């Protein structure tokens, strides 16, 4: 399994990608296709959500099938704050980060008592509970979700402009990935990876295994909440479908597709899945066939995901 390894070559690649992403809005405007700026923001937001799932999944070794609950919690938090008249983006982001993190702390504390398949199922159960609660709470919009009017400004910058919003999302994604990378190399990261490899031994060595796993789970939930808040701002809607189990499934697919446990796995997976969808839709109405076959091919012939393919070819791992 690929770890959070970094090499100079990979770092150079990441910088090149970042430069490319910075130039994207300019290129899109030049081609008269401003729509793609908004689309790119969406992709980057899903990249953040998938990366946060990769934190629990690849890094912590916990297969959570309920990550959508935190994604959705962030979105609803943003919508509720917008409704209450909070007009400062950093405040909204922080609140979504905190609220989703708290929810993850609660769900994690109850779920982490189980293992394996049962952990998968109990996280799913809690996410479904969150889904039905959100749909039923009066004043939360039911099946229609909560609409947001406009986007809160960031220190005087108007984020209603798609390009400004895109750069804000890009900056947050880059900062989050940097944080994940630092975390992986800190003491916390080594312990968590030790637990993933051999939980019993770490316990025997005297590490508070439960506390470590729970912190990892809650942190990932918090970052998913941030992504949710961004998505709500991007689309102008906090939709209950963000909490649905198919959303958890889609995030899982993104991570597995990109590469479990690889720093850029979530990003790669989100980009591949959403761009493939966008391209295939234009070619054929039956694009899901193509997507399904591609996913099967990844399972059968690229078990480490796309990031794994890269790593293997260059012999990094």
């Amino acid at each position: 399994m690929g770890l959070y390894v970094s090499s100079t070559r990979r770092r150079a690649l990441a910088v090149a990608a970042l430069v490319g992403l910075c130039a994207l809005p300019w290129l899109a405007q030049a081609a008269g296709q401003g729509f793609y700026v908004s689309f790119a923001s969406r992709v980057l937001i899903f990249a953040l959500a998938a990366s946060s799932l990769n934190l629990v999944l690849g890094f912590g070794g916990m297969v959570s099938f309920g990550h959508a609950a935190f994604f959705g919690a962030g979105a609803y938090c943003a919508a509720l704050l917008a409704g209450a008249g909070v007009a400062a983006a950093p405040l909204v982001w922080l609140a979504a980060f905190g609220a989703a993190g708290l929810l993850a702390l609660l769900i994690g504390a109850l779920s982490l008592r189980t293992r394996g398949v049962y952990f998968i199922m109990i996280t799913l159960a809690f996410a479904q509970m969150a889904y039905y609660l959100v749909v039923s709470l009066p004043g939360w919009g039911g099946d229609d979700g909560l609409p947001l009017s406009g986007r809160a400004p960031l220190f005087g910058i108007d984020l209603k402009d798609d390009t400004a919003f895109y750069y804000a999302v890009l900056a947050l994604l880059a900062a989050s990935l940097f944080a994940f990378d630092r975390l992986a190399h800190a003491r916390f990261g080594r312990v968590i990876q030790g637990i993933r490899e051999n939980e019993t031994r770490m316990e025997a060595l005297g590490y508070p295994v439960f506390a470590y796993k729970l912190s990892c789970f809650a942190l990932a939930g918090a970052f998913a909440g941030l992504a949710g808040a961004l998505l709500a701002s991007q689309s102008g809607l906090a939709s209950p479908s963000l909490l649905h189990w198919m959303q958890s499934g889609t995030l899982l697919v993104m991570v597995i597709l990109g590469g479990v446990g690889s720093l850029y796995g979530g990003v790669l997976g989100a980009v591949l899945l959403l761009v493939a969808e966008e391209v295939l839709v234009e070619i054929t109405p039956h694009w899901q066939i193509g997507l399904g076959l591609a996913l099967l091919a990844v399972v059968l012939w690229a078990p480490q995901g796309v990031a794994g393919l890269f790593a293997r070819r260059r012999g990094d791992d």
Partner: protein
Amino acid sequence: MFRKRLSILAAALMLTTAAHAADKVKVGFLSTLSGPGAGLGVDIRDGFNLALKHLNGKFGGLPAEVIVADDQQKPEIAQQATEKFLKKDKVDFMTGIVFSNLMLAVGPAVFDSKTFFVSANAGPSQYAGEQCNTYFFNVAWQNDNLHEAVGKYVQDKGFNKVVLVAPNYPGGKDAMVGFKRFYKGKSSEEIYTKLGQLDYAAELAQIRAQKPDAVFFFLPGGMGINFVKQFVAAGLSRDTQLFAPGFSADEDVIKAVGAPMLGMFNSSHWAHDMDNAENKRFVADFQKEYGRLPSLYASQGYDAALLIDAAVRDTKGKLDDKDAVRKALEAKRFKSVRGDFKFNVNHYPVQNYYLRVIGRDAQGRVTNKTMGTVFANHADAYAAQCKMK
């Protein structure tokens, strides 16, 4: 989401400046084309396409490009498709939305971009009253209207214990309000169901326990099909009369349910047996083209296309002059298949509403028959709150 181009034209990079005539008309057609509500969207689309065929593929003499997208009856899918229509395809008009919750979800983005939405179905009370908008036109009705007509009829017939069933979404709430505006019976139980629900066992058990003398239900598409079937299967039809707006008792539902629908009263602003030249041509050609009788949804899709055609024709294709387009839409110079109607200040129709009953026609088919007029020149209850700017 699948997008289909009906007439693909050279995708030249087009930068429209001041009000000069466009060389084609782009319409974004967003509707529910999959799932339990699909029957409605498909009928609207087919009606729209038939009108386009009658117009030789042109709106107001300009080549028409219609881009079709499926909203899957989900607000977030509808929003994404709308964003694409507005920012990528840069359409001149949008139409097609069936469900009011989706209309309310995409409305703000559409109006912000100064794109005209010609609704062929969704007519939420919000956009009829305080939130009425220069860029919103409804060519069909305001949501409450058909329910008001049924409410009046049920009241006139002297029923006084009625159970109301509607899905829990803006259109469902409008239905309850509309029905009760004219129905004044003492006890009326209201049951809200989940939008898209298919198994009504629990609701039917509740109705059985209430022992009403009539049930009024508003469940469009597949929901209504299942409700009527299960209502009859549960034996409730023996001593409880069913009433519905035309939405739940039109050809799409009749085709699926068949004989159990016989004798059901319902309301509509249009019927396939209406006697005018436009309607006769529409009904005959629709049957020839698609092999089934048109529903009211199909008639609405047909009229929406005719309204867009009239607006393009009257403005001579100068679609950038928003004021002129609005005036042309308001003037609505076309002959509707429902006979005459006019737009109120809130851009919703003022028109007649009729009572229909389901029976067998001369050929032995189970279908709707018009009985008489319930309301003449009826306006919706919200127009007074609309201060159109």
